């Protein structure tokens, strides 16, 4: 049995670098854009559950197979007929190779990538993230500095963190708000 520490390390080292490839694979085979993050989340959970018994030998093949099977099951449940998912796979090795080609290039440029991710945040959010990461302010201290509520700081930090992490794993870094965030935003809150 693999413990949480090992599982965590494996997940970050072997699975997260595939996030870009995985997201594209899901988006190409499932037309509902809003479902993509849910499906990806499910793939991660399944991958972790499976790896609990023992870490897989070939990580790319492992993640790819889980993703494909999940999509096939979803399609069946939704009664969608998709040529591509159900087609005979004449060359699964090639598909797996192609799947993994989106690993982030330029590992050395991580520092600049982080800066670029930060630049992509809305100004207010960026400032609040900066206060946290650069000046090391606590939520309370940041709230006092900017003269806003602690709720506001927390909300901006969570959105900023999620957008930044998305960007650093190869995504676009667009902030997706939850339904409650959107409702709050509409009612005039921060």
């Amino acid at each position, binding site marked *: 049995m693999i413990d949480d520490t090992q599982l965590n390390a494996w*997940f970050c080292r072997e699975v997260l670098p595939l996030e870009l490839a995985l997201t594209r694979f899901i988006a190409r085979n499932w037309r509902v854009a809003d479902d993509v993050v849910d499906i990806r989340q499910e793939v991660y959970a399944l991958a972790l559950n499976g790896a609990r018994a023992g870490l897989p030998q070939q990580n790319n093949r492992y993640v790819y197979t889980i993703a494909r099977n999940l999509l096939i099951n979803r399609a069946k449940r939704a009664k969608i007929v998709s040529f591509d998912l159900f087609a005979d796979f004449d060359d699964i090795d090639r598909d797996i190779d192609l799947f993994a080609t989106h690993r982030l290039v330029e590992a050395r440029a991580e520092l600049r990538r982080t800066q670029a991710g930060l630049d992509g945040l809305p100004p207010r959010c960026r400032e609040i993230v900066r206060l946290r990461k650069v000046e090391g302010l606590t939520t309370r201290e940041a709230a006092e500095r900017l003269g806003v509520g602690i709720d506001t700081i927390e909300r901006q930090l969570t959105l900023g963190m999620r957008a930044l992490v998305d960007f650093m794993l190869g995504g676009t870094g667009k902030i997706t708000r939850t339904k409650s965030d959107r409702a709050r935003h509409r009612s005039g809150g921060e």
Partner: protein
Amino acid sequence: MSSALEIEDRAARWLLRSEEPHWSKEDQAALDDWLDQSMAHKAAFWRLQHGWREADRIGALGQDEAVVRSSVRPHVRRWWNPYACAASVIAILGIGEFRAHVPERVEIARMDTPIGGSKIVPLADGSRIEMNTATTLRARTGTSREVWLDTGEAFFDVRHSNEVPFVVHAGKRTITDLGTKFSVRRDGDKVTVSVLEGKVRVDDGTSAQNDRSVIIAAGDTAIGLGTSTLIAPRSGARVEDMLAWRSGSLRFDQTTLAEAAAEFNRYNRKPIIITDAETASIRIGGTFKASNAAAFVRLLSDAYGLRVTTDPNAIKISS
């Protein structure tokens, strides 16, 4: 309601709280409980934790940021010219130990995709290159941003910078980003540029003066061959058709079977060959998955009663 987003939101809040000074044993126990509830919780939390830690580099940036601000060059983009800043900072503040940036070597990275492949290359400055099937390109990052498209097709989503322009070379032609998303496709000497957003300048490289350059905008397509450039303006729909490959599709509208087959053949090793001229000139429309030539061919035989024979080297279509 997206449960993944809700879980991610909760995980983020947990992570932030765990960094705060008053984080107690009880709080940790509560977090562990929440994590144990579901592997999805662990996945979301570990993912954010990993990325957020990676973002600690901002702390390193931040120090230098504060220091650089006090130097005399506020508008030099630091990550394109670190040595100049480093030198001026050291001179002004006499810092003994300076946390240096990764030295800015000019490197040329070469990338390619196989037939039927594709690749997304996120660049450090936030720009993205999406490579299509059978494409080779070279990219230089450093004090300039340049890409040489040797073969194939790529889509560019550029973070605009006035100080450091983003330039794509395709044969003799040069395409300069003016704040854009655009694609460049090279078929030997023929270069096709399609603009999704913003504007680009296309130079045909035959003359030193700027009189041979054109600026095209969103919805425009420029097709260049030799010294001629044809501009097909303002058709957002046509540009979207030409960019359908980004989502793995090929879109045809009144396209001859010959052209459609040629497109499919870019993405698949087993070529589709149309044996007679009459069949080749049938016009078709529709959206197809680029990697599924078999489905395309099946539809053709059903819809047009065409004969399909498959041998190990090719798929032949005839009437």
